[in-house]
C-alpha cells in the first residue's frame, strides 16, 4: 500500500521540478541589481534576464516603476561584449517596450550595434530599434535601414524589411521612400528576403491599383523562387483578377494561366494557395475548376492530416456553389469518414451530403450512423443541418433520413444538438407532407423522455397544430395526456392547450378531451387549472354556451397579432380601472425587431417562454399622443401608421426640415419637423405651403403653422389632407417653407420688431403605396398562409431586369411593399441562384396580407419574380400586384 504512494511522490517531484520553482517577482527584481556591478558577470546576468523573461512569459506584469528600473539596469549591460548576453538584452528591451524618453538612453548603443561588423548585432539591433522607436528617430536611422535592405547578409536584409512592414503602419511616408531598395531586394536569391521584400513592396503600393497590376504582371513571368513569396504573389494576383473581372466577362481570364501553372509547383503550400485562389474566383467556370479540384483530390489521400484538412475544407466550400464539380472526389471523401481527425471526417461528410445524388443517400446514411457515435456535439449539429438540407433536396428519400434523425434523437446529447434535430424534423414535416405522420410519432416518442422543457413545449405546440390534421388524431392523445401526469407545470400547461386544440378540430374526440381536461382542473398549478377551465368553457365542455366555430378557431389557433414587446409595454402602461384592457389598442407596428421574429422557422417561442423584450416601441405612442393633442386632427380617428422621417433638405443647410407621414383611414397628416440652424435669426409664422396638384385624390383640409422657431430648438408644423376612404391614394407633393425672418441681436438675444417675409424651397414628398401597409409579422407563415385560404389569391410573374445580385432585388421589393419579412427569409445566401421570401403585413382598413415571393436570377443577371398574394379582400390582393407592377 505504501509503495505506490512513494512512487507517486517521486513522479510528482519529477514532473514538477523546474529551475524556476518558487520564483518570486520581488526577489528577481532584487537580483537584477547585478546588472549594475562594475565587474559584469555575463552568465549571471543572462540567468537573471531569463528569469525576468520567464515571469513576463507566465503573464506576470511589472509596474511602471519596476519596468523603468529594470530597463535602466539592462541598458548597463551594453558594456559587456558577450554575444549571448547581448542577445538576451535585445529580447528584454523588446519585452519591456520602453516609453519615448527611455528609448533615447539606448538609441546610441543600438545605433552602434547597427553599424557593427557582426551580422547578428546588426540584424537584431535593427529589429529592436524599429520596434521601440518613434517617427522622429526614424529619419536619423533611415539611411542605415536602406542600406540594410540591400545587405548581402539575408538575415540583416530580412530584419530591415520586416521592420519596414511594421513601420509602414505608423510612418508610411518614410517607408515609401525605400521603394527602390525594396524592389532590388525582391530579386534577392535568398528565399525569405524575397518573401519579405515582396510583402513590403506590395504594401507600399497597395493603394495604387495600376502599380500592383504591373508588379503582378512582371513577377508572374517567373522570377519568384521562394514558396512563401509565391503564395503572396498568388494572393496579389487573385486580387488583381477580382478587380479587373468586370471588363473581361467573356474572354480568357487574365493571369489564369499563371494560377494554373502554380498547381504544378513543387511546394504543397503553393499548390494549395493556387487551388484555393482558383476556387474562389468570381463566377468560376467548371472548366477552370477542374485542374484545381484534381490537385485537391490528390491531397485527400495524403498521409499528412494538415494537407487532407486543407483540401477537404476547400472542397467543402466549392460544394456549396458547385456541387457537381466535386462529385469526382466522392470516393476519396467517403474513405475520409473514418479519418482519425474528426474535423476532417465531419467536413468530408458534410461535403458528401452536398454532392451526393439520390442513389447514394442510403449508403451514405449507413456510414454516418457509425460515425455519429464518436464525434462531439458541435460536429453532430453540423451533420444534422447538412442532412436537413439534403432531405429537402431529395424529398423522396425522407424515409431513411427521418429514420436517421429519429435514431440519433434517442441517443445521448446536449440541448443544442437535440434542438437542431427537432428543428430539422419540424421543417421536414412542414415541407414534405408524406413525412408528417412518421415525423410526428418520432416527436411524440421523444417527449415521452425529454429532459428539456423548452423542447417539450415546442413540440406540444407543434403537435396541436399538425396533429388534428392527420388521419388518426386519436393516437397522439395518449402521448400528450401523459405529459399532464409526468412533467413540470410549464409542460403540463402546454399539454392542456394542445389537447384543447385537438378537441376543437376533431369533433369525434371532443367528449374524450372533455374528460381529460376536467381531470386537469385538479392540477396543483394555477396556470394549468386556469387553462383547463378556459378551454372547457370555450369548447362548451361545461355545457355552457358554445362559442361560434370561427371565434373558437381564432382563439385557439390564431397567432398573437401584436408584437410581444409592444404588448408588454402597453400592459405596463395600463392602469387598473373600470375600463378593461383592450388588445386592439396595442400598436402592431414592429419597431425594433423582437428576438422571436428573428428565429428560424420552427423555433416559435412557446407559451411562458417568450423571448425577452428588446427595447420598447414608444415612437408610435408618442406620435399618437402628439396628434390627438391637436384639435384639428382629433376627429380623424385612430392612427394607422406613421412613416419614418424623410429628409426634405440637405444636411448643413440654414433650415433643416424632415417630414413624417401619418396615415389615417380617410386622412393623411404631414408633420414637418423644422430646425433653425442660424443663431442670428428668429423665424415666426412658419408654415409649409403644399402644392398637391400632382396628387389629385388629396385635398387640403387643415394646416397648423408654427408661431415661432428660435435657433436650434426644433418645432413642428402640420398640414392635413383628406383622401377617399379605403383608397390607397398616392401622389407627389411639392413643398415651400414660408416664414417671417427677424434678426436677433447677438448681445442681448432679443429679436428686432420688424421681420421680412421669406420662402425656402423644400424637396418634394411622395405618398407611396407602402405607406398604407403596416409591417406586421406572423410567427408561422405557413399556417397563416393556409388558414387565409386561396379565395383571394392572386399570382403573377414579373421581370425585374438586371440586378447586381438577388439580395438587391429582394430588398428592393421589400422596400417597395413596406411589409415585414417573415422567418428570416429576407436574407439571401450568397451566390444562390434562386430565393423565396415571405412577407406579411396589414393593409389599411385592417386587412391582413401575406405575400410569397420567388426570385430567380440567370446568367445575364436578369431577375425574374413570381408574386403570390393572399389576403382577406380581393381588392387588396389586386392592389399589391398593382404596387409591384407600377413600382
Amino acid at each position, binding site marked *: 500500500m505504501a509503495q505506490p504512494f512513494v512512487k507517486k511522490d517521486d513522479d510528482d517531484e519529477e514532473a514538477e521540478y523546474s*529551475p*524556476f520553482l518558487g520564483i518570486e517577482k520581488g526577489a528577481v527584481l532584487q537580483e537584477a541589481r547585478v546588472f549594475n556591478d562594475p565587474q559584469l558577470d555575463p552568465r*549571471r546576468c543572462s540567468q537573471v534576464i531569463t528569469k525576468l523573461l520567464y515571469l513576463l512569459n*507566465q503573464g506576470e506584469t511589472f509596474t511602471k516603476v519596476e519596468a523603468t528600473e529594470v530597463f535602466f539596469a539592462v541598458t548597463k549591460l551594453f558594456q559587456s561584449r558577450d*554575444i549571448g548576453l547581448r542577445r538576451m538584452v535585445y529580447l528584454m528591451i523588446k519585452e519591456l517596450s520602453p516609453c519615448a524618453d527611455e528609448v533615447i538612453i539606448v538609441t546610441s548603443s543600438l545605433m552602434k550595434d547597427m553599424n557593427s561588423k557582426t551580422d547578428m548585432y546588426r540584424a537584431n539591433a535593427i529589429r529592436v530599434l524599429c520596434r521601440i522607436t518613434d517617427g522622429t528617430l526614424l529619419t536619423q536611422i533611415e539611411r542605415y535601414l536602406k542600406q540594410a535592405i540591400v545587405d548581402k547578409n539575408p*538575415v540583416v536584409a530580412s530584419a530591415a524589411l*520586416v521592420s519596414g512592414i511594421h513601420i509602414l503602419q505608423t510612418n508610411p511616408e518614410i517607408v515609401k521612400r525605400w521603394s527602390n531598395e525594396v524592389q532590388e531586394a525582391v530579386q534577392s536569391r535568398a528565399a525569405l528576403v524575397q518573401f519579405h521584400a515582396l*510583402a513590403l513592396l506590395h504594401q507600399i503600393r497597395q493603394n495604387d491599383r495600376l502599380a500592383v497590376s504591373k508588379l503582378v504582371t512582371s513577377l508572374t513571368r517567373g522570377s519568384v523562387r521562394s514558396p512563401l513569396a509565391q*503564395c503572396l504573389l498568388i494572393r496579389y494576383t487573385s486580387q488583381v483578377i477580382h478587380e479587373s473581372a468586370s471588363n473581361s466577362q467573356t474572354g480568357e481570364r487574365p493571369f489564369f494561366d499563371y494560377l494554373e501553372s502554380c498547381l504544378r509547383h513543387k511546394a504543397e503550400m503553393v499548390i494549395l494557395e493556387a487551388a484555393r485562389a482558383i476556387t474562389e474566383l468570381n463566377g468560376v467556370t467548371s472548366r477552370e475548376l477542374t485542374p484545381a479540384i484534381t490537385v485537391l483530390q490528390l491531397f485527400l489521400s495524403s498521409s499528412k492530416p494538415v494537407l487532407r484538412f486543407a483540401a477537404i475544407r476547400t472542397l467543402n466550400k466549392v460544394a456549396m456553389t458547385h456541387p457537381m464539380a466535386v462529385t469526382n472526389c466522392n470516393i476519396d471523401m467517403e474513405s475520409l469518414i473514418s479519418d482519425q*481527425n474528426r474535423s476532417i471526417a465531419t467536413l468530408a461528410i458534410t461535403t458528401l451530403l452536398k454532392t451526393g445524388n439520390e442513389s447514394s443517400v442510403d449508403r451514405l446514411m449507413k456510414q454516418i450512423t457509425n460515425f455519429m457515435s464518436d464525434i462531439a456535439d458541435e460536429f453532430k449539429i453540423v451533420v444534422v443541418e447538412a442532412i436537413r438540407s439534403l432531405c429537402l433536396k431529395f424529398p423522396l428519400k425522407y424515409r431513411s433520413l427521418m429514420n436517421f434523425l429519429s435514431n440519433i434523437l434517442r441517443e445521448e446529447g446536449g440541448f443544442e444538438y437535440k434542438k437542431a434535430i427537432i428543428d430539422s424534423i419540424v421543417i421536414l414535416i412542414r415541407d414534405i407532407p408524406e413525412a408528417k405522420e412518421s415525423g410526428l410519432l418520432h416527436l411524440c416518442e421523444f417527449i415521452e423522455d425529454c429532459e428539456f422543457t423548452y423542447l417539450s413545449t415546442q413540440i406540444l405546440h407543434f403537435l396541436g397544430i399538425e396533429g388534428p390534421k392527420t388521419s388518426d388524431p386519436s393516437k397522439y392523445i395518449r402521448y400528450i395526456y401523459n405529459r399532464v401526469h409526468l412533467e413540470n407545470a410549464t409542460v403540463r400547461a402546454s399539454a392542456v392547450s394542445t389537447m384543447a386544440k385537438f378537441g376543437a378540430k376533431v369533433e369525434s374526440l371532443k367528449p374524450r378531451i372533455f374528460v381529460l381536461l376536467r381531470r386537469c382542473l385538479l392540477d396543483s398549478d394555477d396556470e394549468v387549472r386556469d387553462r383547463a377551465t378556459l378551454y372547457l368553457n370555450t369548447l362548451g365542455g361545461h355545457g355552457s354556451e358554445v362559442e361560434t366555430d370561427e371565434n373558437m378557431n381564432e382563439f385557439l389557433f390564431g397567432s398573437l397579432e401584436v408584437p410581444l414587446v409592444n404588448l408588454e409595454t402597453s400592459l405596463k402602461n395600463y392602469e387598473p380601472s373600470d375600463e378593461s384592457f383592450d388588445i386592439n389598442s396595442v400598436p402592431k407596428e414592429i419597431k425594433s425587431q423582437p428576438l422571436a421574429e428573428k428565429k428560424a422557422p420552427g423555433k416559435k417561442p412557446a407559451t411562458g417562454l417568450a423571448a425577452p423584450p428588446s427595447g420598447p416601441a414608444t415612437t408610435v405612442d408618442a406620435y399618437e399622443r402628439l396628434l390627438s393633442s391637436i384639435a384639428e386632427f382629433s376627429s380623424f380617428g385612430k392612427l394607422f401608421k406613421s412613416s419614418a422621417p424623410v429628409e426634405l433638405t440637405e444636411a448643413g443647410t440654414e433650415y433643416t426640415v424632415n417630414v413624417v407621414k401619418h396615415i389615417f383611414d380617410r386622412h393623411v397628416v404631414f408633420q414637418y419637423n423644422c430646425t433653425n440652424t442660424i443663431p442670428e435669426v428668429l423665424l415666426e409664422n412658419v408654415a409649409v405651403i403644399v402644392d398637391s396638384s400632382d396628387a389629385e385624390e388629396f385635398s387640403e383640409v387643415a394646416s397648423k403653422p408654427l408661431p415661432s422657431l428660435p435657433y436650434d430648438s426644433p418645432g413642428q408644423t402640420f398640414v392635413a389632407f383628406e383622401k377617399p376612404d379605403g383608397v390607397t391614394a398616392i401622389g407627389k407633393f411639392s413643398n415651400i417653407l414660408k416664414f417671417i425672418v427677424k434678426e436677433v441681436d447677438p448681445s442681448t438675444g432679443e429679436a428686432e420688431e420688424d421681420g421680412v417675409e421669406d420662402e425656402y424651397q423644400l424637396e418634394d414628398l411622395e405618398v407611396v403605396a407602402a405607406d398604407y401597409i403596416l409591417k406586421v409579422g406572423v410567427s408561422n407563415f405557413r399556417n397563416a398562409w393556409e388558414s387565409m385560404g386561396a379565395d383571394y389569391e392572386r399570382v403573377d410573374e414579373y421581370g425585374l431586369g438586371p440586378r447586381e445580385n438577388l439580395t438587391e432585388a429582394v430588398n428592393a421589393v421589400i422596400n417597395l411593399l413596406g411589409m415585414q419579412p417573415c422567418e428570416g427569409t429576407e436574407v439571401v445566401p450568397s451566390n444562390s441562384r434562386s430565393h423565396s421570401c415571405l412577407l406579411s403585413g396589414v393593409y389599411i382598413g385592417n386587412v391582413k396580407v401575406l405575400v410569397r415571393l420567388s426570385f430567380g436570377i440567370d446568367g445575364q443577371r436578369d431577375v425574374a419574380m413570381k408574386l403570390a398574394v393572399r389576403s382577406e379582400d380581393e381588392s387588396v390582393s389586386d392592389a399589391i400586384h398593382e404596387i409591384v407592377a407600377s413600382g
Partner: protein
Amino acid sequence: MELCPSVKNVLLLDSEGNRVAAKYYCDDWPTNSAKEAFEKAVFTKTQKTNARTEAEIAMIENNVVVYKFVQSLHFFVTGGEDENELILATVLQGFCDAVGLLLRGHVDRREALENLDLILMCLDEIVDGGIILETDPNVIAGKVASQSVDAGGPLSEQTISQALATAREHLTRSLLN
C-alpha cells in the same frame, strides 16, 4: 484585407497543458486570463489526438491551429480562419525541429525550462510581430546557438552541432551555478 500570411500565436505547453513559453502577436487575447483560457481550450481539444508522426490540425474559436507533440511537449501555431494551413504547418515544423535541435533531442518540460533562454530566442527568430521570419529549423537553431557561444571562432568553422554542444554546456553551467 490582410494579404500577408500571419501567425496569431505560437505556444509551447507541457504534457499537462501548462505554459512553457508562449508568444502572442495579435490582440485577440488581450489579457493573460484570456490567453490562458485559449491555451486550455487548445490543450483539452487536442490532447487525445495523436500528433506525433505528423502535425495535426483543428479549428478552435474560428482559428486554424496546427499542432505537434514531441516527447512530452506540445507545440502549437495559430493562424486566422482563412490562413493557408500549410504555411502554418511549415512554421510549426520549423519551431518543433529547431527546439529539438537546441534541446539535443531531450524534448521535455524540464529541459525546456532549463534552456528557456534558447526557446525564447528561438521564438524570436521564427516570427516577428506576426510575420514569418524564418522557417528552416537548421537556420533557426544555428542563429540561436551562434549567439550563445563565446565570441570565439567564426561560426563557419564550427558545425551546428558543435555550436549547440558548446551552447548547452555553457548554459547548463550558468543555470546550475
